[in-house]
């Protein structure tokens, strides 16, 4: 579950129309949300509030065993009113629980109106951990409608005191450009003098002047290719990875994502496949292979969502298309809808014209357009169902062949509180045990 300050950062991004799904860093988020979720350790309680639509604060207490109580104090300020902010009582769970990401990259670059241009938003955030007095800071400044500068800093006092160094300071700078066709990030991390570049390119996105936030036939599928390059100036180590992501919808309107990631320096290749089989369920699998050590691993996971009130439960499955129309509809990855009739039309048009075949072609053409519209309507309908569903809890589960562990996490709402609990079960035949267990409670007003 997202922490309060992470939720605010997302509100800020949504409010200022910044799409994180179009950045290389988030290209594997759909599978990571199910296969690499973070189980809370110990007990954590946080109370947060909004003193104005621009100012937010949070206090949290944490007990990780050993009888020690840790806490933190955080403040958040933004120049932009967060109109989409919701308290823990009213917040839809799909806004705070990390799950399958519906990638819908707009086909137009964002642009500010004259009024917005003068108020390019920025964000300030600071958190102090107690009693260690370590500090975490972040500042984000939107330079233009499609570019932002992000500065993050961490100063940890006495992490493991040594005669040479008793504190750890790290600063990171991110210059991000995010356009509908591509995105780019230039990064500098002070800790190892690490320089990084990240790119992501979306194939086939065409500019459409009448861009609408809903899904239309031009962005049913998105094929993205990204890469990142790193260079550590202090230890002269390079780094490189590249990822391909394909997101689409099945003929029944189910969103699916396929990714192929490769790191030639470490020799790792991993593929993931995630599909939202219905409004309640997401299934995900990941296969890792290392071509230097020949090690491999298969990880599978799922998340199951639950509704509290049966009256509000939407249909779990998207409305399927009639079988005849399904045959006519073939979505292609290059953002175009091609119908078999159109292909037929190309071949038939070379033959001598026949009145009957002309009529048949016209009929098929009309039928094709109708089918495409129905498919887009089915997808939009399914997407809206996911966005508006009144979920009350979610259960996440994953396991891998190599580690013999099962990770379980339950996240939900009880009265006005957001709860998150989970454990990691080690299924070792000799010594099965529970590796980690935790409970996190959040309240915000």
């Amino acid at each position, binding site marked *: 579950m997202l922490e309060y300050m992470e939720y605010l950062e997302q509100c800020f991004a949504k409010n200022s129309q910044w799409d994180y799904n179009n950045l290389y860093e988030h290209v594997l988020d759909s599978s990571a949300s199910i296969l690499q979720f973070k189980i809370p350790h110990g007990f954590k309680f946080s109370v947060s509030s909004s003193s104005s639509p621009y100012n937010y604060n949070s206090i949290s207490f944490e007990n990780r065993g050993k009888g020690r109580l840790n806490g933190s104090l955080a403040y958040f*300020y933004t120049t932009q009113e967060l109109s989409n902010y919701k308290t823990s009582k009213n917040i839809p769970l799909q806004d705070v629980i990390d799950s399958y990401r519906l990638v819908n990259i707009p086909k137009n670059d964002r642009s500010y109106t004259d009024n917005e241009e003068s108020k390019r938003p920025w964000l300030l955030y600071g958190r102090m951990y107690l009693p260690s007095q370590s500090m975490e800071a972040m500042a984000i400044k939107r330079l233009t409608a499609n570019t932002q500068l992000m500065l993050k800093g961490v*100063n940890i006092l006495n992490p493991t005191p040594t005669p040479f160094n008793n504190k750890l300071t790290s600063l990171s700078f991110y210059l991000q450009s995010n356009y509908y066709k591509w995105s780019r990030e230039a990064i500098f991390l002070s800790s190892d003098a690490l320089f990084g570049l990240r790119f992501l390119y979306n194939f086939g996105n065409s500019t459409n002047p009448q861009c609408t936030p809903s899904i239309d036939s031009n962005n049913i599928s998105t094929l993205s290719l990204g890469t990142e390059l790193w260079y550590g100036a202090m230890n002269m180590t390079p780094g490189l990875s590249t990822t391909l992501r394909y997101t689409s919808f099945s003929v029944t309107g189910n969103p699916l994502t396929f990714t192929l990631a490769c790191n030639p320096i470490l020799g790792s290749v991993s593929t993931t496949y995630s599909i939202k089989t219905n409004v309640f369920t997401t299934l995900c699998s990941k296969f890792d292979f290392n071509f230097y050590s020949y090690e491999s691993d298969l990880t599978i996971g799922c998340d199951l969502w639950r509704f509290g009130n049966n009256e509000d439960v939407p249909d779990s499955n998207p409305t399927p298309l009639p079988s005849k129309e399904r045959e006519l509809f073939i979505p292609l990855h290059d953002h175009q809808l091609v119908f078999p009739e159109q292909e037929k039309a190309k071949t038939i048009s070379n033959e001598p014209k026949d009145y009957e075949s002309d009529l048949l072609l016209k009929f098929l053409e009309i039928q094709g357009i109708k089918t495409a519209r129905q498919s887009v309507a089915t997808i939009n309908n399914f997407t809206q169902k996911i966005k508006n569903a009144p979920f009350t809890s979610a259960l996440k589960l994953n396991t891998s062949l190599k580690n013999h562990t099962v990770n379980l996490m339950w996240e939900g709402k009880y009265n006005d509180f957001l709860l998150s609990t989970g454990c990691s079960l080690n299924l070792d035949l000799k010594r099965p045990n529970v590796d980690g267990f935790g409970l996190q409670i959040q309240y915000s007003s």
Partner: protein
Amino acid sequence: MSGLALSEESKERIVKILDTTTTVVHYGWIPFVLYVGWISTPNRPSLIKYVYFPV
């Protein structure tokens, strides 16, 4: 080609300046966020509500 030669005294001074800057930012960042938030907010809430946590 030799790099920029700095005396021991200059090195110590630079380290001291960096340490002081880090300490100032470390303890001054949250008061800075609060101050900027306070002066820039159009409808200012009460100071108690602004700094503390109403439950």
